[in-house]
């Protein structure tokens, strides 16, 4: 029995799950800041990203060390490979929270604020649920839940298209606030990318469980 090795593998999975849950919390805080353009909260989120980067770096190092020292195969190999990829996606999701916070800061400082685009709340909540469920699918080895996450990406993509149409039209009719509409375009794009990263996480969960590379 390779008790220490197996314990290290399990510990890494627990740590990555906790990191995922931490990022779920950051997502919730980011929405609170975005919905009311709370500059102070956005600044806290922006500065908090370094902690997440440190955790990602630490867990990637642990993952690589296990790979180098233990020559993992089969489920263990897929576990370490998928965990490494998932860490990368989690890090990007956290980065996008930070990116959105930057634009919250810009929007919040505008003297004459435009209305939040319609459906932004729906798009954001679907995306946040996808991230939550992809982390849950990883923690619980639930390939059915991972499939559901993949399916929900269509909802986000459809909302993205509609919001972009709305913003394009608004820019044509309200040229005074073009800068703010552009900020929202970037925010909406970040949300769409975060959903894509949750799909990536779901895909790596499927690889870990089924040995199928899904793209």
């Amino acid at each position, binding site marked *: 029995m*390779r008790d220490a090795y*197996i314990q290290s593998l399990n510990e890494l999975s627990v740590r990555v799950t906790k990191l995922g849950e931490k990022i779920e919390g950051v997502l919730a805080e980011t929405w609170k800041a975005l919905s009311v353009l709370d500059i102070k909260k956005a600044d806290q989120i922006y500065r908090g990203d370094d902690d997440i980067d440190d955790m990602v770096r630490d867990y990637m190092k642990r993952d690589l060390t296990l790979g180098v020292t233990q*020559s993992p*195969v*089969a*489920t263990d190999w897929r576990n370490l490979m998928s965990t490494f990829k998932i860490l990368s996606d989690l890090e990007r999701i956290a980065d996008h929270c930070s990116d959105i916070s930057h634009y919250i800061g810009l929007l919040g400082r505008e003297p004459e604020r435009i209305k939040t685009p319609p459906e932004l709340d729906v798009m954001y909540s679907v995306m946040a649920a996808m991230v939550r469920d992809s982390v849950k699918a990883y923690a619980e080895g639930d390939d059915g839940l991972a499939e559901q996450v993949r399916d929900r990406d269509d909802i986000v993509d459809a909302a993205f298209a509609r919001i972009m149409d709305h913003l394009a039209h608004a820019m044509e009719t309200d040229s005074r606030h073009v800068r703010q509409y552009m900020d929202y375009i970037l925010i909406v794009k970040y949300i769409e990318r975060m959903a894509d990263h949750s799909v990536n996480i779901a895909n790596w969960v499927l690889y870990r469980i089924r*040995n199928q590379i899904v793209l």
Partner: protein
Amino acid sequence: MSEFASEIISYTSGALRNRVAEDIVMEAERSDVNTFDVQNLDLYYDKVQALKHISMEIRKHEITALIGPSGCGKSTFLKTLNRMNDWVTGCTVTGQVLFEGRDIYKEVDPLALRYRVGMVFQQPTPFPKSVFDNIAYGPRVQGMTDKHKLEEIVEQSMRQAAIWDELKDRLHKSALGLSGGQQQRLCIARTLAARPSVILMDEPTSALDPISTQKIEDLALELKEKYTIVIVTHSMQQARRISDKTAFFLLGDLVEFNDTVDMFTNPSDAQTEAYITGRFG
């Protein structure tokens, strides 16, 4: 008849010549058949069953690795492939082992079989003779006396075993003075000189340092272009590095036989998974 078959026949003689020649011609004519087709093989040491209903195809020009914990039957299985278990008192075998389509226990002469199915052991086993005489031993026993032909075979075998450059100036020195890695490659060259089509390797690197191990592994990968190789190994990294197929044995059962990449990424049996990930054994 192939050039190779003609060459062998040219330096063998008498009854042995006929047996060897017959097998070689058969091999030349049946290039599409598997090297081995093992069907429902059972092997007993007296009343103890060491192999249970083993069925397996070993394809030409592939490296097949046999893995499993000590006492699982992998070396016993290897030795059934050239009937080395014939010498074990109380050993009985049932089922079929077809070598290039013919039943080795009914249709093939054991001596001729062992020329065609050579073996390399865990510990290098050089004879207390010169390097040259070690390698020329097989062809001489097969009846070859032509000095130039022998020299040609020795050089060719040593080149194939990646040992010519190191030992070409020491051909007439004792083989016992070589390093362990050199001795093992000498033994491989000696096996090749007998012109086999299969090389069985029973933990050929377990007594060697990492550099010598790497040389033997590289050699195995080169040799599979011309030979079929079956290797018993306790190193799963070695099985992963060099084999095309891997067979996992446990308590005399063949638990799983699969493409090596598949076995080490997604084994189909839970016992295989537990063994290769180190959860038992």
